[in-house]
């Protein structure tokens, strides 16, 4: 990271133009560097600072102390929570990877029908809120009132509960359920990118379907599998929504939930929240290091590929029905059943005697939608859902362009800082932002949430913009320059035109993230800046599952409209699968 300008020989012939160019080479990276530092580095730094204070920075009585750090890093309840968080996250990763690999192999390699449709269905949970999913599962499988348990009682006369998600296994299962698409996408793209001849050579050497899958297919994509594992691990470690919704510390302690509890329940201790945040930060950092290593190995495994010949599909024959059932069960559990439950709760009245003859009503829905607080939170969600992706994309494109096309000084530093938030869970960012802006007028406004979201999601926007710019052949820009266009004319008329699809996908992706995000928003929530996910959480905390479900549906509706507009109006590709 060299931010200094190399001492250029100030020759006599050096004109104004050259001087201006050199100044641009410093001013832009300095501005970007400063912005990224404020957005990314300062909050994390302040979180570390906050961990060793007895109170907030505005508190005059606060002083330096190791108390919280010692408490969190050395005493049993926190170490136990740490162990449970890491262990449960590993288990979640393992489950998600096993299911994801199986789904990826079935869809990429066998003759299951309706591949496109099944694939879209498997990826769909990615674009929906895991918190809403958890809420729906609470409705479905809480120990007494859970709809599945009620149904079992009504139909089979079973007393007690058949499923209970408010337990450690339940929480792990639901977290795995909503992380399967990440594992699926990573493994699936590795399988699709693999030279089919690798497997064909195995068949011709006398190996059968299972042997080929075990000895050739999976080993060749092993680096992708490992990187998927660590990706899901990091994501799960920082998850707040699912363990919080399904019972928090009562069923299974989780670090992210502890952070929230430290800031929201008596005794409120912001320093402790910051200390737990630093702990979670280290775990994520280690996970990301493993993830990066695995991804690098994955690129080393790239081999020569022949022109695309149709892959020979494994004929499932009698197993076909079983394979379809397996995929269908996943889709039913991840999407269909949860949303049926949400709709049921949202549109029935409490007086219903049983599920079979429930009375449907719009009254609850209307009451919730008409409340001033809910309207305010819809407005907040939409506003943040517009500002955060726009800011993210602007920042991401500027950094990518400065790096790739202007070769500014300090490009490596900008790249590193812009990618760094990948390693920082949303709730950790929330903690840092909280400590940073507590003393500013931004606290309690939607801007503080915008800052947190932009910092959290800038890596995605930057990476997508960067990939798009790399794909633009330099000769296209050089041709424009030789036709007499200036640097900025070329950028405007050629480069930015060509990367427009990439920019739009990045915008939609960050929009989705911003609308469904809960963990950072919940730490920074105050009455005037509540977004829909926080609103839903508040209702849930007060035991009003029905209103929480209605808000969840509203939030999902905004997401679905966003995806729909992106996919069919702007024709954006959200994943490489379309």
């Amino acid at each position, binding site marked *: 990271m060299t931010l200094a300008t190399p001492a250029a020989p100030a020759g006599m012939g050096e004109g104004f133009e050259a001087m201006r160019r050199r100044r641009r080479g410093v001013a832009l990276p300095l501005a970007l560097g400063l912005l990224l530092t404020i957005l990314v580095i300062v909050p994390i730094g302040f979180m570390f600072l906050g961990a060793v204070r007895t109170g907030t920075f505005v508190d005059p009585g606060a002083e330096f102390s190791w108390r919280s750090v010692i408490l969190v890093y050395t005493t049993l309840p926190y170490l136990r929570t740490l162990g449970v968080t890491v262990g449960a996250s590993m288990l979640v990763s393992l489950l998600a990877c096993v299911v994801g690999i199986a789904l990826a192999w079935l869809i990429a390699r066998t003759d299951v029908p309706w591949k496109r449709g099944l694939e879209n269905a498997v990826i769909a949970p990615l674009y929906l809120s895991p918190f809403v999913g958890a809420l729906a599962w609470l409705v479905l499988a809480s120990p007494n009132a859970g709809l599945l348990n009620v149904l079992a009682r009504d139909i089979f006369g079973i007393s007690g509960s058949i499923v209970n998600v408010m337990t450690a296994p339940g929480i792990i299962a639901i977290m795995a359920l909503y992380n399967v698409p990440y594992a699926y996408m990573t493994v699936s793209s590795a399988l699709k990118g693999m030279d089919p*001849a690798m497997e064909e050579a195995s*068949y*011709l050497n006398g190996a059968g379907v299972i042997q080929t899958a075990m000895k050739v297919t999976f080993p060749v994509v*092993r680096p992708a599998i490992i990187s998927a594992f660590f990706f899901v691990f990091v994501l799960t470690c920082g998850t707040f929504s699912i363990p919080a919704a399904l019972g928090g510390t009562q069923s299974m302690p989780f670090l992210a939930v502890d952070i929230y509890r430290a800031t929201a329940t008596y005794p409120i201790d912001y320093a402790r929240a910051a200390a737990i945040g630093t702990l979670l930060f280290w775990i994520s950092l280690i996970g990301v290091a493993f993830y990066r290593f695995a991804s690098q190995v994955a690129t080393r495994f790239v*081999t*020569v590929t022949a022109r695309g010949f149709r892959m020979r599909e494994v004929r499932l024959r009698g197993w076909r029905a079983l394979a379809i059932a397996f995929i269908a069960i996943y889709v039913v559990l991840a999407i269909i059943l949860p949303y049926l439950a949400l709709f049921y709760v949202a549109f029935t009245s409490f007086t219903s005697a049983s599920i079979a003859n429930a009375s449907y009503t719009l009254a609850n829905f209307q009451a919730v939608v008409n409340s001033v607080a809910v309207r305010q939170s819809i407005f907040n969600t939409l506003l943040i859902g517009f500002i955060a992706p726009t800011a993210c994309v602007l920042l991401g494109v500027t950094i990518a362009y400065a790096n790739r096309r202007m070769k500014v000084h300090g490009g490596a530093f900008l790249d590193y800082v812009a990618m760094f938030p990948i390693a920082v869970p949303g709730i950790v960012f929330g903690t840092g932002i909280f400590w940073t802006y507590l003393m500013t007028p931004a606290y309690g406004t939607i801007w503080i949430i915008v800052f947190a979201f932009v910092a959290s999601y800038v890596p995605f926007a930057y990476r997508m913009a960067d990939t798009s710019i790399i794909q633009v052949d330099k000769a296209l820009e050089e041709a424009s320059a030789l036709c007499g266009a200036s640097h900025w004319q070329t950028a405007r008329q050629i480069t930015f035109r060509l990367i427009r699809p990439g920019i739009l996908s990045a915008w939609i992706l960050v929009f989705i993230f911003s609308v469904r995000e809960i963990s950072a928003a919940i730490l920074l929530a105050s009455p005037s800046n509540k977004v829909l996910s926080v609103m839903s959480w508040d209702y849930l905390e007060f035991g009003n599952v029905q209103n929480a479900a209605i808000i969840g549906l509203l939030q999902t509706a905004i997401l679905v409209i966003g995806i729909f507009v992106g996919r069919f109006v702007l024709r954006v590709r959200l994943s490489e699968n379309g």
Partner: protein
Amino acid sequence: MAQLKVEDLVVRYGKVTAVRDVSFTVEDGEFVSLLGPSGCGKTTTLRCIAGLEASSAGVIRIGEEIVAADGLEVPPEKRGINMVFQSYAVWPHMSVFENVAYGLRTRREPREQIEAKVGEALSTVGLEGYAKRYGTELSGGQQQRVALARAIVTSPRLLLFDEPLSNLDAGLRERMRYELVELQRRLGKTSLYVTHDQSEAMLMSDRIILMKDGEMVQMGSPRDLYDRPASRFAAEFIGNANLVTGEIRRADQRRAEVVLEGGIVLEGGFAWPDHARQSGPVLVCVRSESIERVPEGTTGVNCLDAVVETVSFLGATISCVLRVGTLGLRADLAARNPPEPGSAIRVRIDPEAVTLISEH
């Protein structure tokens, strides 16, 4: 080793027919090439024989065994054959030894036997000392040798090659051609080789099957295909011949006199007995190297006056465009004493080298 017999093979993808009524036999120990431009169905045919692609109709026999027929489809792993892929398909997570040993381990052969066989296969392809390396650490040529060792080590009844040399650079490709042929002759394996490179097919094959648009166009020895093309396509694809249309003026069972554009008369022989005609249009095929310069004033059959239009120096020969009346002909002449562009020369075309093709 065994004979390969393909009868009336048809491959359809929906409404598209990729391979239509292809029938041929590869005798025990023979080296046969499927040659044709891309999209001609040669790779599809090969993949059907390998069992990697399902056929729509037809019968494929390896030895006495039927491996593909109506409703029967022996999976590739049970066909007792092996294949060398265009992309090498060397497994990146296995060492060279493990790559080559894979097929033997699959058959659960004893350990010592596997080590002996793999060692022998590696020395056959000239890769002794590379056993512990990983596939991705090798150059393209070395990876291709690993793929070859892996294919021969299982003693397959039939060896298939899917454009194995097309990813190599020109010099290495040249050398590997000779090595492959030498190896095939030494091992005596029945081999089917797919390529779009006519010189590769000419050099390596006992017989060539020329394909176009999913159909077989002509089958024969490299010499036959070059000297006696049976169609315009064959004449153009192999050796890029001069082709002009003419009318038969006089003919017997084997030979004919043909009038070309501008009244030029050439004498030549019919490519195949069933091409013989007494009258009507005919395609005249003249290889550029069969046009020779003769002294001014030479008379006789197929002696013509020509004007040299362009001269390109190729080293041992020069390539000229000659104008005979209104007719343009490419000719390869000796590089010594080349004619000046614009000069008039006398040329002769050996009647034995003029092939008459009746395409109807």
